[in-house]
């Protein structure tokens, strides 16, 4: 049986992946099919893409609806009020997502 942590950490089908865009209709070619891959991509993608998606609410929507991780969605939503941009946004989003990923990984091994 899947635990909540293993469910959140699963790899989702390609059609449910997170696709990174830099603006309306402009796809970077980068996508993530799991939280682990998402964390990696946050480090690599064009920072404009992170700005575009954060303030549209796309990250928390994917975390909540696709990964089914309300906790991560809430933490990402809280970043809006910080008005971050550029590398500080990347660093903060990476910190938030990677910390959540590590916590879920540790729950798997308990």
């Amino acid at each position, binding site marked *: 049986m899947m635990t909540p942590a293993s469910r959140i950490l699963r790899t989702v089908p*390609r*059609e449910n*992946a997170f*696709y990174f*865009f830099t603006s*309306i*209709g*402009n*796809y*970077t*070619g980068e*996508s993530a099919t799991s939280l682990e891959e998402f964390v990696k991509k946050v480090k690599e993608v064009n920072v404009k893409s992170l700005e575009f998606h954060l303030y549209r609410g796309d990250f928390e929507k994917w975390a909540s609806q696709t990964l089914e991780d309300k906790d991560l969605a809430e933490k990402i939503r809280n970043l809006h009020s910080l008005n971050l941009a550029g590398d500080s946004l990347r660093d903060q989003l990476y910190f938030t997502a990677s910390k959540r990923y590590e916590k879920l990984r540790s729950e798997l091994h308990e």
Partner: protein
Amino acid sequence: MKNQAMILDDLDLKILQALQENAKQTYTEIGSQLGVAHSTVYDRIKRMEEQGIIKKYTTLLDLEKVGMKQITAIMTVFTDPKESDNVAMRLSQFKEVLEVSTSLSEELLIIAKVVAEDQDKLHSFIAQSVAPLPRVLRIRTSIITKKYKEQGFSVEK
């Protein structure tokens, strides 16, 4: 079989031009403009339909007047060249996609004309239906803000 160009005479071209100006004209009206019998016009149009020279008759709508808001965008899809035909075929099946063509510049591209109600719906369509297609490498989209001309290619008399 390779497509062969059909030979059209001056009367065929004049009939085509009349239809392009107004496809609702009757055979009699076209015949009287051109000084030929309506049966001649009928025969020529029938032949050009059968030969596929006239592909279809369509209606050009003013969507604003019927209360339908929409935006149009030109979407350029970069693909793995081996998969471009498959991607183009898949794109052609979406109702949001009006035209699909391929182009070879520095890389093989698929160029598609896309319509949607607004920018959010355009983005959702591209993010949920186009980006997930296998071997799509990246996508560039330009939203059309003003159109200066729209018509089919006109035959010359």
